[in-house]
């Protein structure tokens, strides 16, 4: 059995704990982190917007005012992703394979889950108002398109039953028509 846990900054400990609790002892565990390309991309863009500064082209590393902040952000992102995966592996405490990808996050996740038997991910939406929006677009995409079963976990303790909204009022003319 191959279990993939998709780890995101801010919510990853819950995914690791879910793998520990629910994945069989002999399962092959893959810890996946996807670096979003948009953050370095925005830094590249802001740099390109500074017209006339004589920046170097391509990937020649400049220094001083010629140093592209997007390149630095990309390098820092690689380093912090490696740290996150190392911290997650330590928290998991059993053999696992770290996997680092870069690109459109939700698509990379679905692609990586191609040969998996279980995808573990955490809610990333607005969890103050429980409902459709408690899933953000990336998690929504992964839940809809994952080619395997999905284990969706709460980043914090799961809400108890007191958070249920009141039931809708009974319809005056019998049960509502089917949607």
């Amino acid at each position: 059995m191959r279990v993939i846990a998709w780890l995101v900054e801010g919510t990853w400990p819950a995914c690791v704990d879910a793998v520990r609790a629910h994945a069989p002892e002999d399962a092959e565990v893959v810890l996946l982190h996807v670096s979003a390309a948009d953050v370095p991309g925005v830094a590249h863009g802001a740099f390109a917007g500074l017209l006339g500064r004589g920046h170097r082209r391509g990937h020649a590393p400049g220094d001083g005012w010629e140093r592209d902040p997007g390149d630095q952000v990309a390098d820092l992102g690689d380093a912090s992703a490696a740290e996150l995966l190392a911290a997650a592996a330590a928290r998991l405490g059993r053999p696992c394979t770290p996997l680092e990808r870069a690109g459109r996050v939700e698509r990379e996740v679905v692609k990586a889950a191609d040969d998996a038997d279980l995808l573990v991910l955490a809610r990333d939406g607005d969890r103050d108002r429980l409902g459709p929006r408690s899933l953000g677009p990336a998690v929504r995409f992964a839940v809809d398109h994952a080619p395997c079963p999905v284990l969706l976990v709460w980043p914090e303790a799961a809400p108890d039953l007191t958070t249920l909204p009141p039931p809708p009022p009974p319809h005056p003319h019998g049960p509502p028509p089917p949607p």
Partner: protein
Amino acid sequence: MCGHRRPRPEDRALNTPLAESLSVVLLVAVLAWAVVRPFGWPEAALAVPAAAVAVAAGAIGTDHARAEVVRLAPVVGFLAAVLVLAHFCDVEGLFRACGAWTARWARGRPVRLLTAVFALASAITAVLSLDATVVLLTPVVFATAARTGVRPKPHVYACTHLSNTASLLLPVSNLTNLLAFAASGLSFTRFAALMALPWLVAIGAEYVVFRRFFARDLAASAPAPGTGEPPAMPVFALITVGCTLAGFVLASTFGVEPAWAALAGALVLAGRALVRREATALGVVRAAAPAFLAFVLALGVVVRAVVDNGLADALGHVLPGGTGLLALLGTAAVAAVLANLINNLPAVLVLLPLTAPAGPGAVLAVLLGVNIGPNLTYAGSLATLLWRRIVHQHDHGVDLKEFTRLGLLAVPAALVPAVVALWGALRIV
């Protein structure tokens, strides 16, 4: 509505239609070169010869060209001093220390970190220019967020937005401001006093938009254990920057060019780095970005040729006259649109001669437009954006729809109240 017409220059050698087309061709070539950068050559490599051609062919009279260079030279010197100051603040470790302070204050909580990043990026942009925020602060903010277990996206986006929006306060914050400052005839302190309220209002509007737009990313946090040793406080750099700011106020009180205060601050920090062998003389010169300075001077001459040769009349009909609230709003809107089409540097050079006769209010409204406007297109202008899309440079990842949606919310939300605040400030201050 009335246009501001400039007297036609009398000393040109070319007849009007020929001079008009030549100057427009030269300007388009200079801007296209600056965006495309053939062979990776600096922007000045075409801009300087183009300015020489404009003068030699008589598209701009020699006395107009000389007047333009004389007007721009102090601005360019001021800019060079600020760039050197910011560069050596980085060498002294100011930006790393700022990252560590925000991390400690935020304690791994994303909303607190966003608030701290807003305060920090606004202060850095205002005092050390937008170049410092884009080039020096953005990587530090990313590293701070990543180290404290916070999603970096809202904070990095905040840096890019604030490098524009928070560059309203002081003449040194943005090259566009320096150009307008020279044209407006305002003193340093009066400029700052008039822009303080629009600056605060625009930053506040951005903050509200960011809190809502990035609510999901700001709700997630997994505090990382320990943020490491706090780095040493760069006392010398802080004192130098503080004294430079005080120097601006003193200089403008006594009628001295505030550029001298910037020069003094830059020399102190650069001199210290030289004495401690942390920098070479060549390094100091490169910190002043000489190719950029040459580009600004040459671009100024070429734009002046275009303005003299008919653009003044054409745009004069588009720009509203006067300094009523509606006129200011219209001026800022035209400036924002123009900045998004062709980058804010040529936009402000074109609009300044047209608005300067209407007084400082109109000039400052132009600044609000060209400084806040570029947040709509993430590479500063549509021209740069299109070119980067054509060559697929670095940009595979940016979600253009998302960035534009953020810009469409943030730009009007910041620009309109900022113009209203400027209108109010013009009546109070």
